[in-house]
């Protein structure tokens, strides 16, 4: 198998190291606005917790029967630190082994993890928005409240936005860096 160019090797290592930021900055954010919340409410999802106006959002959502958001609801918070740790380790290993197949593997692993995370988030959002307390004060037939996966959505009096936070952007940056490196490797070896 082909060895990587020295620059590619460094880029793979950089992509892996960048992901360390996931332990220090939030990965995802959900923002909400309503007529009486012009300043907005914010929920930040970290590698192992949720911060922001979680209590306020829960207090408001209980009227439509949504569950009280608690960190304990998410088993993901127990193992996400290990998954990201594994990704970083795998990336550094790829740089060490210095073979293109390892770059391929790292790329696919990262993209696969990203897709899995989004699917997991969508499934939680589906449950959170559909699985409502039947005795809730406000019950609008046919209305469900699944938050947007990515983007903006109107839910009753709230405009909700969901998208990557700083950590999420860095993750996507790492992914872009890896794919770019892979393309560069393939392109430059064909040229020869």
């Amino acid at each position: 198998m082909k060895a990587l160019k020295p620059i590619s090797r460094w880029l793979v290592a950089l992509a892996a190291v960048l992901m360390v930021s996931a332990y220090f900055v939030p990965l995802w954010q959900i923002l909400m606005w309503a007529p009486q919340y012009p300043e907005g409410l914010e929920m930040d999802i970290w590698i192992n917790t949720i911060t922001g106006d979680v209590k306020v959002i829960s207090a408001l959502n209980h009227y439509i029967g949504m569950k009280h958001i608690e960190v304990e609801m998410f088993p993901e918070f127990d193992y996400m630190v290990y998954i990201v740790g594994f990704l970083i380790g795998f990336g550094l290993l790829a740089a060490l082994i210095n073979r293109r197949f390892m770059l391929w593997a790292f790329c696919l692993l990262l993209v696969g993890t990203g897709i899995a995370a989004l699917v997991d988030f969508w499934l939680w959002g589906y449950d959170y928005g559909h699985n409502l307390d039947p005795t809730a004060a406000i019950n609008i037939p046919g209305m469900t409240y699944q938050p947007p996966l990515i983007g903006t959505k109107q839910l009753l009096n709230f405009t909700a936005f969901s998208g990557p936070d700083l950590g999420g952007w860095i993750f996507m940056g790492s992914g872009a860096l890896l794919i770019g490196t892979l393309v560069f490797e393939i392109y430059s070896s064909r040229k020869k």
Partner: protein
Amino acid sequence: MKTNVLYRILTVMVVFAGLVVWQGCKPKAPASVSMGDAATKTYVPPGKYDEFYNVVSGGFNGQMSIYGLPSGRLFRIIPVFSVFPENGWGFSEETKPMLNTSHGFVPWDDLHHIALSTTKGEHDGRWAFGNANNTPRVARVDMKTFKTMEILELPNSGGNHSSPFITENTEYVVAGTRFSVPVGDKTDVPISTFKENFKGYISFISVDPTEGEMKIAFQLKTPGVSFDLARAGKGKSHGWFFFSTYNTEQAYTLLEVNASQKDKDFIMAVNWKKAEEYIAAGKGEKVKAKYAHNVYDESSHTSTSEMMNEVLQLDPAVLKDIIYFIPCPKSPHGCDTDPTGEYIVGSGKLAALIPVFSFTKMQQAIANKEFEGEFAGIPVIKYEAALHGEVKKPGLGPLHTEFDANGNAYTSFFVSSEIVKWNVQTLEVLDRVPTYYSIGHLSVPGGPTAKPHGKYVVAYNKITKDRYLPTGPELTQSAQLYDISGDKMKLLLDFPTTGEPHYAESIPAELIMPNSVKIFKLEENKHPYAALGEGQAKVERKGNEVHVYMTAIRSHLTPDNIEGVKLGDDVYFHVTNLEQDWDVPHGFAIKGANNAEILIMPGETSTLKWKPLSTGVFPFYCTDFCSALHQEMQGYIRVSPAGSNVPLKFSTGKIEDQSSGAGQ
């Protein structure tokens, strides 16, 4: 006969013609319409903020109110010295101690003056002080929470009018008595022994530089006169304090006449640094005195009242160089120092001129012993020796003076109902505008500080009459806002004010707004009866006391069904607002309560005491419209006869089986 008739007709015609001419000569009513672009200068568009916080004394309502300038909109009334059923101030168990005094619980007072804390003579936006004019006290309001945090009573005072003026770095708040009174062991004396037995006292209250806590550092035993107003020196005159006095005649009856006899009363100059030296040298005397010191604790949301029992006094008649008198014409009212600290303006309320004294000349006069004599053992400096000059024919009845940053002074005139602008250096009158009507205090943003913000002057008038739609004999109070950014003062706005404002101060919004607290953090709530979650809500009996640890969150109270209370019990509802969201207060009221409601801010705990006087089921509810289901935020408490065996129980959301609960 004929000539007689003609004569009569002629007479009537002459009289008629005279009437027509006389009517034509009658002066027109004063023009009161503001001109030009006044509307745009006071218009704050929806969603935009005012430029200044205007902290206004409430006068006879005993409170402080917060307005915005230039809009003149009222934002809030902060309860200080008077009970406030609207939010439970003085009614809740937590706030009752704040109104405790050596005379017991005093539910009302008269707040006249505001002092905003300063550092190096400039506004720092930390605290607002207010005085109680009736039962002598000083209060400190925190400008982060807009809440009264401390009230300190003043012993040996008969009415705290000359207060709460502050020194350059808020080292001291002063409190001078308006009434001299007999003090110590000899208080039951004939009123006619005024000269012999009545004393005036000036208190210097030290303010903790970080926490703000107040303490009477010392009192000056001064001659039996009335102290009216005061201002600290600043810059070069830092270390001195100036007080206006009246009734140096020492009259004790019909003061209107008897205290207006002397051509000149005094400005009393106090060298407080000298007083500090005497105290350091152990010259102070500890004297027995009874006064209350009430402090509100932010973390327990509870106040305590401590009865103090002694005060440190200095006698300036014995301890020389603390006090000097400067003669000032005709019962001076305002006593104001300019931003540089060089000039002291005395406003004799019956005078037809304004004397301006020079601090430098006063110091020279003291050094050269240019005294005209003594008053009660205190040297009196020669008038001319301390005088910078007089503002000639400024108007009638000068009361107060404020300053801008450009060397101009603005003096209010009660009798001639106007504001007069004059130059402090040249003493030349520059402009005058009418006020509607009979202005008392006036306020330039930063006007009493070393660095005035200028831009506006507000007139706080004593007479309202026809300025607004009439509301019977009792009217709102009248204020006017003037633009002082140009050479000529321009009337911009009339706005009604609540209570009866005396002095007010204004401070740029950016010094206050970023620090304004939105919620109290639940995890920092150290109230002994707080229920920091619904799981902690409970009802406990301690003898005849029933303590309800209640929580409030949108949109229910926990517990909302309570039984087992008996006649003769005192029920304490300790309500904790579990919200941690901005502007979601909850309220609590119960039918038949002989007190008031309580308003509980997010994260706060507040207690309403209720003594049921009959058996039955009593409703209670949330009084602050908190949410879409606010109207559902209600509950019941059952009161059974004394000695009944109904067990104590409580719940929320529990539907009981009818067959088991019946007949209890």
